[in-house]
């Protein structure tokens, strides 16, 4: 059975996958796999952009997503007469059998099914099944990926990597066949500034502790610009401690439950000199 394996560390947000998908499906009739996609408004493959943190400590995340070709697909359960799973794992909406059934869109918890107003039929990613059946080894989105972030193949060939992979919204329980590697978690970042000297502080140690069990999560040093980034932290609440010899140790509670945190001016003070 086939899987999609997407390494988000390698994605640069070029959108080639999104455009290649449109190139394959807009104006092209691949019946019985899929009818033509309308020119605009459908995203059978879509890249999302998310801006995290605060200027200048910012990260931009990209996420390429499409139908998850779930093994436990709610759409197949909802309309078994119109939607089927192939032996290779791909989930296909039969454009004729599904005609007129707009409620199919509501069956997908991921919102990956689109309504074709002109043809009055629900449509989505087909995994380019028509190409695979014609001898292609990968769908167009994967073929167009210039960084190697998007890959497609037999599940057993990816077995080692899938052990560390995630799926989107696993709580839906749909057993997706699209896996993500290196999906960013939260970060905390700061520029440590000696306010009195009006200089950044290089080589300060920043340590992040979990609030619940006080365990050390990560420890880094500020770079030559006084910056540090602690990345890939699980969402939660933490205590950040910043210290350096000759300076007063500073600590701060950091809430990373819903979003990343940046402190563009983390104030630091030299130890008072006793005359």
């Amino acid at each position: 059975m086939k899987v999609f394996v997407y390494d988000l560390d390698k994605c640069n947000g070029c959108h080639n996958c999104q455009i290649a998908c449109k190139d394959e499906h807009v104006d092209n009739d691949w019946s019985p796999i899929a009818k033509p996609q309308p020119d605009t408004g459908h995203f059978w493959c879509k890249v999302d952009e998310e801006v995290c943190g605060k200027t200048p400590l910012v990260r931009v995340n990209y996420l390429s997503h499409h139908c998850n070709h779930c093994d436990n697909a709610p759409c197949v359960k909802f309309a078994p007469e119109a939607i089927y799973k192939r032996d290779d794992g791909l989930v296909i909406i039969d454009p004729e059998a599904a005609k007129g059934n707009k409620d199919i869109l509501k069956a997908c918890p991921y919102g990956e099914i689109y309504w074709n107003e002109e043809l009055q039929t629900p449509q989505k990613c087909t995994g380019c099944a028509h190409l695979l059946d014609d001898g292609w080894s990968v769908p167009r989105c994967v073929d167009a990926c210039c960084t190697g972030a998007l890959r497609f193949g037999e599940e057993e060939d990816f077995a080692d990597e899938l052990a560390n992979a995630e799926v989107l919204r696993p709580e839906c329980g749909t057993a997706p066949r699209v896996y993500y590697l290196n999906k960013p978690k939260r970060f905390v970042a700061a520029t440590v500034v000696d306010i009195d000297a009006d200089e950044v502080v290089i080589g300060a140690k920043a340590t992040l502790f979990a609030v619940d069990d006080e365990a050390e999560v990560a420890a880094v040093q500020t770079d030559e610009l006084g910056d540090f980034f602690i990345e890939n932290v699980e969402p939660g609440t933490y205590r950040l401690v910043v210290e350096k010899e000759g300076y007063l140790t500073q600590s701060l509670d950091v809430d990373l439950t819903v979003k990343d945190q940046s402190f563009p001016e983390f104030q630091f003070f030299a130890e008072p000199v006793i005359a």
Partner: protein
Amino acid sequence: MMTYEEFAEKKMCLAPTAEGWEDDPVALTAWYENWEDQPMQTPTGKIEIYSTGLAEWFPDDPTRPVVPHWIEESDELKERLSCERAKDFPFLMVTNHPRWRVHSEHDDVTWLREIETCKVKGPDGYMYEPVWLNPIDAGKLGIANGDVVAVYNERGAVLGGCIVTERIMPGSVYQDHGARVDSIVRGTGGLDRGGANNLICPLATASKNTLSEATNGFLVNVKKVDVLALAEQYPEEFEREYKPEAGLQVSAWIVDGE
């Protein structure tokens, strides 16, 4: 590497990295070791940091000096936040090569325009060229994400759809160059709906003795505009043939249409 027949068949040829490239000397080493026999085309035959040609012909050019150095402003170019003009135009405008076009080419490509960061939909349904503002500046100016704004200076104004984002620092504004012109008021001091900010960039070149653009950063101010009121004021300009998914139609620029 391969025969032409092989190339025609494969339609590509990856030039392999040379064997032992790690031992290659750094660039220009051969020239450095024997520059007299292979002189540069400069008067001295060397790489000139002090330009002997400029020293001979234009020794007193204040903005193309004999030794290159930073020049904050000149008589012709006053486009820095330190300039007197910045009192009226307090933002530094950054106009990059566009992410979703090549200059003004492809501004009408439907698949690119529907990418979320490509255009911003105004209350009139027009797809405006994005203008990035930091949340701090947007707050001061009373501008919210999605508002239509005018980016302007004494040379004129262009409209844009605001994206409030941490990706731009306070004090700066960002709008790609190359959005297609859709003039509301033409000429100096005019107004462009398309967001073609080349219309408001500096006219002066870096020096009166040479052609070199200094247009990628310049002073502007930003304000929120009521685009529906503008539409009432300029009905003819706002009724040009337009499709949101592709932009202004060619027929809008042809006498008697079609």
